[in-house]
């Protein structure tokens, strides 16, 4: 259980999809609380429901059953407009594949995120912070995978979101590049106080979080506390 008052609360959330003629249950009666400023890692094999859970927390989808609260406000019945506003103002996403816009330079991709909110951070400064100061004018095609992911993190951070949701952010990167990305996420949590939720199938990543949730077959099977999280640089996989 987080120490502070939870800002996000999921109660008995179930999500089912109709795939063709088969009803697939991606998430079953799952409850979860996330406190503001927390860094949490959700671990599980592929198909365990991690991404579905992340999408529900991020307002990309609504549950079939159960409740989701953000700051006391219910999200499960929010309409498309409200969910868009929630994603715009509260959430920052980092995906496994950077999903940068190929027709915009690194700086412009970040500025695109900044354009969405009232009080964004400076795109140049955020890019400097992620170590991309000298690559601002480059297009995604001119950047390596790790660099693209750093720009994607900058694009999420520039909105100054309360919650940063990262779906397998190191999934497509080699170990050393992956560690640098995790360091950036940890830094965002430490310096800006951004709540960070990372989902991964890589159990080693769990060592950087204070709290770890484990998933299997659409359910959270356990929560564990880590009294002494380590710096991502010390993690090996």
């Amino acid at each position, binding site marked *: 259980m987080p120490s502070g008052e939870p800002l996000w609360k999921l109660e008995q959330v179930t999500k089912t999809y109709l795939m063709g003629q088969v009803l697939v249950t991606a998430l079953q009666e799952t409850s979860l609380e996330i406190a503001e400023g927390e860094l949490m890692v959700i671990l599980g094999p592929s198909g365990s429901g991690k991404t579905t859970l992340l999408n529900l927390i991020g307002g990309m*989808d609504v549950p079939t059953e159960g409740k989701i609260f953000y700051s006391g406000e219910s999200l499960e019945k929010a309409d498309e407009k409200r969910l868009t506003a929630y*994603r715009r*103002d509260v959430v920052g996403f980092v995906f496994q594949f950077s999903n940068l816009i190929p027709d915009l330079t690194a700086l*412009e991709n970040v500025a695109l*995120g900044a354009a969405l909110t009232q009080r964004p951070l400076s795109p140049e400064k955020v890019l400097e912070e992620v170590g991309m100061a000298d690559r601002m004018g480059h297009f995604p095609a001119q950047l390596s995978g790790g660099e693209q992911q750093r720009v994607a993190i900058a694009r999420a951070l520039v909105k100054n979101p309360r919650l940063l949701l990262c779906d397998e952010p190191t999934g497509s990167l080699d170990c050393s590049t992956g560690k640098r990305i995790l360091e950036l996420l940890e830094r965002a949590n430490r310096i800006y106080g951004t709540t960070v939720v990372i989902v991964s199938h890589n159990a080693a990543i769990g060592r950087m979080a204070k709290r770890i949730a484990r998933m299997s077959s659409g359910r959270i099977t356990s929560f564990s506390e880590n009294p002494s999280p380590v710096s991502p640089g010390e993690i090996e996989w």
Partner: protein
Amino acid sequence: MVKSPLLNKLFRTIHSTRGPFFGVVAVVAVGLSVFISMVAVSDNLLRSRESFYRQTDFADLFFHVVRAPEGVVEKIAAVNGVCGVSGRIQKDVSLFRPDGTRATLRLTGFRLPMENELNRILVQKGRLFENNPEGGVLEILLNPQFAKANGLRPGSTVSVAAEGKEKPMEVVGIAASPEFVYAVKDAASVFEDPSGFGVAMMSLKQAQQILDFRGSVNQILVRIVPGTDLNRLRKEIRTILEPYGNLADYPQKDQISEAILRGELEQLRVAATFLPSFFLGLATLMQAVFLGRLVKAARTQIGLMKALGYDNGRLMLLYGGYSLASSGIGGGVGIVAGYGLARVFTRLYATYFNLPRLEAAFNPRSAGLGLALTLALGCLAGLLGARFILEIRPAEAMRLPSPRRTVKLFLEEWPFVWERLDLASRMSLRSIFRNRFRSAVTFLGVLVSIGMLVVSLFTRDSVESLFDRHFNWELRYDLLARFASPVKSSELLNLERLPGVLRVEPLFELPVRLTFRGRHEETVVFGIVPGQSFFGISDHRNRPRGLPVSGLLLDWNSARKLGARPGDILEMETLLGKGPSRKDRLTVAGLCRKSVGRVSYLDLQTLNSILQETGLVTGAAIKTGWGQSLKTERAMTGMINVSSVISRQKEREYMERNLAYMNLSVAILVAFSSLLGLAIIFNASALAFSERRRDLASLRAMGFSRGEVAMFLLKENLLLLAAGTFAGLPFGRLLSEGYARAVRTDLFSFAAVVFPRTYLLATAGGAAFSALAFFLGLRSLKQLDVAEIVKARD
């Protein structure tokens, strides 16, 4: 039996991309239906013309003389190269209608039996006239348009003024004549109401009696041995006819009805090449672009199939099959729609052209040609679009594609411009220049559809402006009265006394032959008084001008044919048909231009002195009080020497009523151009959407609303749409000019006039296409599964 998996894949690909697929099908179908219908109508017209001319033995050469003895026919028949001659009489007389108005009837006498005569007629209703009918009744056959317009049928009786006497005549039938396929009095009367001009066919014997032409003829028709030198023969026959007052001679192609029919066929030929080439060309490009995108999107699948052992040829066949399928379906629909259209147009032509066997027949040649053309273009599009298959290496295709390459634009070198652009515009501009071929096709498509919208609407503008110029500026009288033969101008006093008449101005219409440096031109000279106010005269640049103090104001078209310029001296021979022919030399004082017909102007007094006469006129232009012209026209009923009266207002009303053909083709063209624009935009939007799905999903995940993302998507198309529309307007103007030039004839000075209204309507079309692009984007965005796309590999 198990179908080939590749064939299954082809069907499924078509099904999953059915929107753009049918967009291409629509454009191919439109292009082919225009082609098929125009070729079919033109074939129908040509075929029925050929069969009609052959059946009736339409003459090769026409000679008009004042009066020649019938025996001259044998003399001409003996000329080497001549294989058939007919002598006959033709003269215009007045027909009095029950409502007091009059019409012009061209009485034409035919020798009986008709079997060996030229320009025979084909009886469509009733029976043929006889040489000696019972009780000496004057029997005539009428052309169907005139009979219909005047409610005349076999058994009706009409009253005609011939040689100063009123004579009753009995209509015994309705007949078609090869020289009146399009019944029109002369080149200046192309716009005249068919109820005001008709053809009365009767036996030569009766015609000679009532027109006081016993034993004489005034027209010689000649059929020549194929391959004979036409000019030599014309010269030889002219010499034989010299003593009888040569008035005019012309070959079949210059005969007025044939000239109008040829003009129409030429228009159809232009339309059959001009319009379908745009549609089919664009359909090919659209197919190539869309196929290219399909191949790129299926890169992994193609790599996999290559890894499995499929060779380039079979894979090219699979994707090429996609464009062949759209061409095949489009071609099939186009052929069916083309014949539907051909039937409509043929029926419409049948109301204007009296060709007895004009019917819409299925023409396997045009269908086969059209289908072969679309399939060939389908193959070309298939090759162009599927060529990327050759570049795909199986091992590379399995790996995640790297982000699309983008380079900096020249615009980025100008920070004062670039920095003012928002991110969506920067994205769009870069995307446009990255996908140059695709952008070029969208731009071209919009440009052509906007251009075509302008062309579709311009014909209305041009005809309206031509009407306006002709009826409001060139002709300002209310009635034009023509006398049966020249009269003294003092006779005009009788007209001035008629009720409702405000002002009468004299006119002498003199047919002449102009000669300059060995070139001849037969035309009409209007003798008018200086300071007259009923004929608006303009120079060759359409600027108003007056009658010169001395010399001839030469028609621009005639000047062009003769190669004469102001200051040159021409020889003029009068061809009045009454009295001796006179020759004189005249200086070209200036050039003039009329929107309908060809007319040169001369001072009335000078004209009289050339004829060695004084104060003669052949007609009068009359201005009546408001709403009085019908009253005045009726009051002229009793004046036997007045051969015809033309009402400007009636002529205009008739023309405006008869724009059905034009309105129909304008409506069809507008529909087709809009369809082209819609298909282009639909496909461009579908392509932009499918290519940017991941980008758009990322934007949605970041928190951009659907509307905002749709705007991102629209901006790219909007820039191309705006550029295409902007360039499409002058392009449309150019096309209009080209089209006007291609269909311009000696009879019509068809100027390309485009009203601002047309540009506005075409721009509105562009705006409608943009709105459509936006809504298509919005609709696709609603179906976008954001969560699924952002986490997927590709």
